[in-house]
């Protein structure tokens, strides 16, 4: 009985990969654990092992093939007494080979029905039986949708007028933009260094620091033990001592261990010292919900940090803002909490090709102009808002979407100006509703924009529960386009 060997999912986010190299040839006897092939995912090249013993019947997908979907049959194994030629007569058609089609990697593709664009630190680089099986099962059922799928978006923000006219644009992922921002600032200023778990030799748990160790060496790219409280304190102290540390948290969930140093040590120093002791540190890492990692690994800390005077809090959405604002954060004399989003790392956007792309902190950006209603959002919520806006445009509702980008200091002026124009507002936030950024925006509208309001400001936030694991409950807990559309229609009385 021939056994099909399918393209494995080698990370929770992998949708497709490149079959870089076959390490066996047709007719080879293999036993369990033998490496069959090298497969390139969006994050790394990994070895793919045989699950069972047998004879390699047919290599269905030739090596060098890019864009091989997870679950595609890549080889046929012959049973013990089977003829290779028999096994070769595969009933499955070979997949479409898109050999060496480079941009296939890291395509933003998190539309409904697509695979979730979720990434997780990969502790286990080996593709084992269960993983491979699970992946092919998933594919067979076409049941890849989780709660975070609904956070996906293909619609790009409108080009920012901050980018000078005529500048060449290239396509880059948020991940690349962040890495380039750090690399550029490290080249520019000797005092800048990065520390955190797995930032150096592992190349970053989410690959954001890829290549930095190679360029800057272990003095400036520092792997720490798993000890958030301690290394956040060391980073903060190093900033007090005159350096420019970038402290990476593998995710901001783990920064809860270190929050004392972020708030009590970093944020308050300048004030408590009457302005004589500064603390120019950047705390950065992914924040917010990730796919199927449940409550302790899925939380948006934006409102927590944004409530603290003495901190700058930035939560960009697209690649251009991620780069320009991270560079600004590193140069800032103030402590900055820089909130990234795991689900957005792999999304591609236009990035200006400038020698020094630095954006202003504390300025919101209108990512879609409109006249009927304003949606205020930030981070991954911007994508959801843009999707909703596109759909609403089809119904004659012209939505203006404001991306806050910086949560503290908050750009009240841009929010109020947009309100003045549209007289209606919805806040979209992937996070808990209570004491949220949405609460703050609504307060600002009440206090300073009351006369401009034609309807109460509504908020679309996650449900007020810890994020559940089950896919259906996760879907129910997180914001989605439909909820945004419903809220927009409500404030438009439609």
């Amino acid at each position: 009985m021939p056994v099909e060997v399918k393209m494995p999912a080698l990370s929770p986010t992998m949708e497709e990969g490149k079959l870089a190299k076959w390490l066996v040839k047709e007719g080879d006897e293999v036993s369990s654990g033998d490496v069959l092939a090298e497969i390139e995912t969006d994050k790394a090249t990994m070895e793919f092992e045989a699950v069972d013993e047998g004879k390699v019947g047919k290599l269905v997908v030739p090596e060098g093939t890019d864009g091989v979907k997870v679950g595609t049959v890549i080889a046929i194994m012959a049973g013990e007494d089977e003829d290779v030629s028999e096994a070769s007569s595969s009933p499955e058609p070979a997949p479409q080979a898109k050999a060496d089609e480079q941009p296939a990697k890291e395509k933003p593709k998190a539309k409904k029905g697509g695979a979730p664009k979720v990434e997780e630190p990969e502790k286990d680089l080996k593709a084992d039986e269960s993983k491979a099986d699970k992946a092919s099962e998933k594919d067979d059922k076409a049941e890849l949708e989780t709660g975070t799928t609904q956070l996906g978006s293909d619609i790009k923000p409108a080009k920012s007028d901050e980018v000078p006219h005529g500048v060449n644009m290239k396509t880059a992922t948020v991940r690349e933009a962040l890495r380039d921002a750090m690399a550029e600032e490290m080249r520019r200023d000797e005092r800048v260094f990065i520390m955190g778990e797995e930032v150096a030799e592992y190349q970053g748990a989410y690959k954001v620091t890829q290549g930095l160790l190679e360029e800057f060496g272990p003095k400036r790219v520092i792997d720490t033990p798993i000890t958030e409280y301690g290394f956040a304190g060391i980073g903060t102290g190093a900033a007090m001592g005159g350096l420019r540390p970038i402290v990476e948290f593998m995710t901001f969930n783990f920064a809860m261990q270190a929050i004392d140093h972020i708030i009590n040590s970093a944020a308050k120093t300048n004030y408590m010292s009457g302005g004589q002791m500064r603390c120019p540190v950047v705390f950065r890492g992914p924040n917010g919900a990730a796919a199927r990692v449940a409550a302790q690994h899925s939380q948006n800390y934006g409102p927590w940090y944004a409530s603290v005077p003495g901190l700058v809090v930035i939560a960009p959405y697209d690649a251009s803002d991620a780069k320009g604002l991270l560079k600004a954060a590193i140069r800032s004399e103030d402590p900055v909490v820089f909130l990234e989003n795991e689900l957005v790392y792999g999304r591609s956007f236009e990035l200006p090709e400038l020698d020094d792309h630095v954006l202003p902190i504390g300025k919101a950006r209108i990512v879609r102009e409109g006249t009927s209603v304003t949606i205020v959002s930030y981070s991954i919520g911007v994508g959801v808002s843009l999707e909703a806006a596109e759909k609403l445009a089809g119904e004659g509702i012209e939505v203006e979407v404001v991306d806050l980008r910086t949560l503290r200091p908050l750009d009240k002026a841009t929010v109020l100006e947009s309100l003045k124009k549209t007289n209606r507002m919805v806040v979209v936030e992937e996070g808990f509703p209570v004491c949220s950024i949405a609460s703050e925006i609504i307060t600002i509208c009440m206090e300073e924009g009351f006369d401009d309001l034609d309807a109460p400001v509504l908020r679309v936030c996650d449900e007020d529960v810890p994020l559940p694991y089950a896919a259906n409950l996760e879907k129910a807990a997180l914001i989605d386009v439909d909820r945004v559309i419903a809220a927009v229609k409500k404030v438009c009385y439609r």
Partner: protein
Amino acid sequence: MSNAEPSPSEIAEREEDFALHSLAEKHAADRRYKASKEELLHFYEQMLLIRRFEEKAGQLYGLGLIGGFCHLYIGQEAVAVGLQSALKGGLDSVITGYRDHGHMLAYGIDPKVIMAELTGRHSGISKGKGGSMHMFSVEHGFYGGHGIVGAQVPLGSGLAFAHKYREDGGVTLAYFGDGAANQGQVYESFNMASLWKLPIIFVIENNQYAMGTAVSRSSAETHFYRRGTAFRIPGMQVNGMDVLEVRKAAEIAIEHVRGGNGPVLMELNTYRYRGHSMSDPAKYRTREEVQGVREKRDPIEHAKTELMEMGVAEASLKEIDKRVRASVGQAADFAESSPEPDASELYTDVLVETY
């Protein structure tokens, strides 16, 4: 067994064991710094300044001129003076917790601006915005003044990290108490400081009480100098009531740390005469215990006796006392007469930049 040759692994173990004890042994062989008369007079004057300053602060607190928490350093003066006298000014860094007045005075920071901070005035070292627990002087390499118990330990490790990163040859002295020594972040810092060979001396000022809890009631290992062993940090146990012993220990530790050998952990045995803070009823110890230390182990009396043995006339010691009292008196007058911060200061220094 005793005749058997030690195995290579046993030898290696003994050598490692020796490495962790070597500083203590070096100190045991030569415990006290040989100070000249002038040097000891200087230490005496600094210790006396801290004592009189703190007594005055206690009075001003009683008068309602100082508010909130105020932790006095009386009894522990030899620790800050002995250690900091061995540092290189303008290069090395010092960081401590909330009981920080003594460390600032030992660094030669003007008593006036410290006292004015205690009274919350504009001319205070933090413009009146920090108070007793949050004072800094970057100019002097004094990085606070931190109110969260134990936070100064990783922060100090960060300062040491900066010295190593810049390769400037500087070392950091991070003070904390026997109470803070039970915080988890202290051990996270020990681990990284030793792993990365950071130039830092961890100084545990063991004043016997974590607020009102005696060390024996809060600590499974009361010999704090041993607590770095798990991280391969050599320990030293020092009599913190003898300024010359402290100074000598500091020199040994600093030489080791400045030589690129990684951190040292020093336990300074000392005693706090006053309460944990001004609101401490001190029900956890007897008056006799405090009195006993005052009479038998007082660091200032100890230095005074030694000075007189060196031939210093009592009159010159009185002269010093007079000078110190005058300086403290001026500091108190300054602190009382300085204006409060301007109302507009409420909003300054929150952020450095304008966005």
